[in-house]
């Protein structure tokens, strides 16, 4: 039973499930550090997935699709940036509405542009290639999973240390955190909080676009309606559980990736798909319950 469950294929499916969540959660982390309440990860990821497939279809190139996904994610994130930062609108209301806008827009464009409902699959849609790193990809069990990844996959892994350096070892990172923690002090020192908040939101849009590309061109090669299916919300939780720290966010994302990968495996072992589908969400809720008292900020925002 044990050998049946744990092997390199399982590790690989865990890593595969982890990458989109990690990318989105890193975006959420940057926003959290800049003091922007970001719950639109789900919608931006969905827009990214759609743009990735559309771009890859039109150019028959996964690279073009990925770049378009990042551009679309950033462009779409401006809705939240403008509404919540410039107009000072309620970030929860705008965040929820932005997610619904993404769902409506992609479900509208799918039949309108590609003439199909529900799922779009086409041989012209180019999937992301995997690039094995010599020697490292031969390490048993973890090698093929980690060192035989896609470009967004490698970017996700590199982003963890890179963002740590950026946030904690660079002046810009310090200012960004200052904007989030002490906006008035930051402003007194000549830092423009609006600029930093916009940059944070756009960065999260770009990362979510990348997450969407990995989802729609890496994990599968197709777009289906609402295909982000809650991963953006799991990423929101990952930011909270990981205390908006790159290492913490990686750990939390790995937990959810493990739940999804394990669910996938158990499904292969005969468990009904309905049960295994629920696993990542249940795992997320359990993790939330175990790591209480980390949600002061959100509880304050939701007035409890």
């Amino acid at each position, binding site marked *: 039973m044990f050998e049946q469950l744990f092997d390199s294929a399982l590790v690989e499916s865990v890593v595969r499930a982890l990458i989109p969540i990690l990318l989105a959660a890193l975006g959420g982390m940057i926003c959290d550090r800049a003091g922007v309440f970001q719950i639109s990860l789900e919608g931006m990821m969905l827009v990214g997935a759609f743009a990735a497939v559309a771009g890859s279809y039109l150019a028959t190139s996964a690279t073009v699709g990925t770049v378009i996904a990042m551009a679309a994610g950033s462009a779409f994130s401006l809705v939240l940036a403008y509404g919540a930062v410039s107009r000072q609108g309620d970030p929860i209301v705008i965040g929820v509405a932005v997610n619904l806008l993404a769902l*409506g827009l992609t479900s509208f464009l*799918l039949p309108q542009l590609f003439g199909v409902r529900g799922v779009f699959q086409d041989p012209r849609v180019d999937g992301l290639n995997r690039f094995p790193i010599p020697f490292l990809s031969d390490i048993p069990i973890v090698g093929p999973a980690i060192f035989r990844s896609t470009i967004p996959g490698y970017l996700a892994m590199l982003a963890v240390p890179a963002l740590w350096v950026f946030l904690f070892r660079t002046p810009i990172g310090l200012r960004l955190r200052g904007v989030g923690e002490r*906006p008035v002090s930051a402003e007194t020192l000549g830092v423009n909080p609006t600029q930093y908040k916009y940059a944070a939101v756009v960065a999260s849009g770009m990362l979510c676009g990348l997450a969407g590309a990995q989802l729609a061109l890496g994990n599968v090669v197709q777009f289906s309606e609402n295909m982000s299916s809650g991963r953006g919300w799991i990423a929101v939780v990952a930011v909270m559980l990981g205390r908006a720290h790159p290492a913490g966010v990686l750990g939390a994302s790995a937990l959810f990736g493990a739940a999804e990968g394990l669910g996938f495996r158990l499904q292969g072992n005969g468990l009904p798909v309905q049960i295994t589908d629920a696993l990542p969400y249940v795992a997320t809720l359990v993790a*939330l319950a175990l790591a209480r008292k980390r949600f002061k900020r*959100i509880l304050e925002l*939701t007035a409890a």
Partner: protein
Amino acid sequence: MAETLRASTNRVLRNPVAFSIVLSLLIGAAIIAATGTNPLLAYSEMVRGALTGSGLRNTVSRMIPIVGMALAISIPFRAGVINLGGEGQMVIGGLAGTLAAIYLPLPPVLVIPLALVAGMVAGALWALLPAIGQTALKLPILISSLLLNYPARALTGYMVRFPFADPTVTSSSTVPVPESNRIPKLALFDGVSASLVLLILLLIGVALFNLRTVPGYETRMTGLNSRFSRYGGVAVDRQVVWVMLASGGIAGMIGTHLVVGETYRFLDGDLVVSGFAWSGLLVALLARHRPGPMLAAGAFFAALQIGGLAMQRNVNVPWQIAQVLQAVVIIMIAGRFVLKARRETAAVIEGETTVTGEV
């Protein structure tokens, strides 16, 4: 003549709600035009589809779940509790109500009300989970209620795939509710469901509750300023629990109505795909949680969706443009003038950071 026209145009543009609706219709027109259809043609099909022929009945029918879910969301929202789990509560309640309507061996006079009660109880219990999560474990309801939508969908999907499946069909579905146990249709609007009466009674009840009772006042107080409310002697935790129970109960009842009063079979995914819970949430925000305006905003969104479906049939423009318009309206409104109650809360937090920032 030109003067009065300009004056009334001015008035419309100064009203944030009207302004947002006009602007979102323009944005929608641009999207429709960009994807290759004449927006005027699309919109005229939309209006015709929503209001003429069987369209009017369909619009009124669609109002029931949308306004019902708006009502469900508005009760906790007034108290500052954001329940994003309406969908899950609706689905769980819908399945419980359907099973009661199918399997209770009682006369229809009893079965129909009991089915609605079963739906309410199940929906309320599902909503109790995030409520307890927040009061006992300090998990934000915003997140936990949303995450619970997915297990709810999975659980009901499992139930109608295995234990309660109809073996004669290939889809995951229950057997049909016996004809005698279905919620009857009214002679109104060419046969709209009798649930409409129930919905109107609920709306009146909630309106009276909000305006004329102590707990109704207390929920508003908590929504405006929970610390003050706690200081004033309101048991805020208990309030969180009962507003969530009420919310989930109404959502479960609406779920029951959608099957026992409309489709007669609980088909996996059927209640989710139309996005009633989310349309209801947006209606509640648009109407700022007041029952009267909720009816108007619900009628508007229902007409958009039914008109959108007609548009899809006749000029082949996907109905989801209605979802786009709905979301854009809300973003506009939230961006232009902030929903009052919640902005004050945000301002309080902002103020605190400011003070510490200056020290």
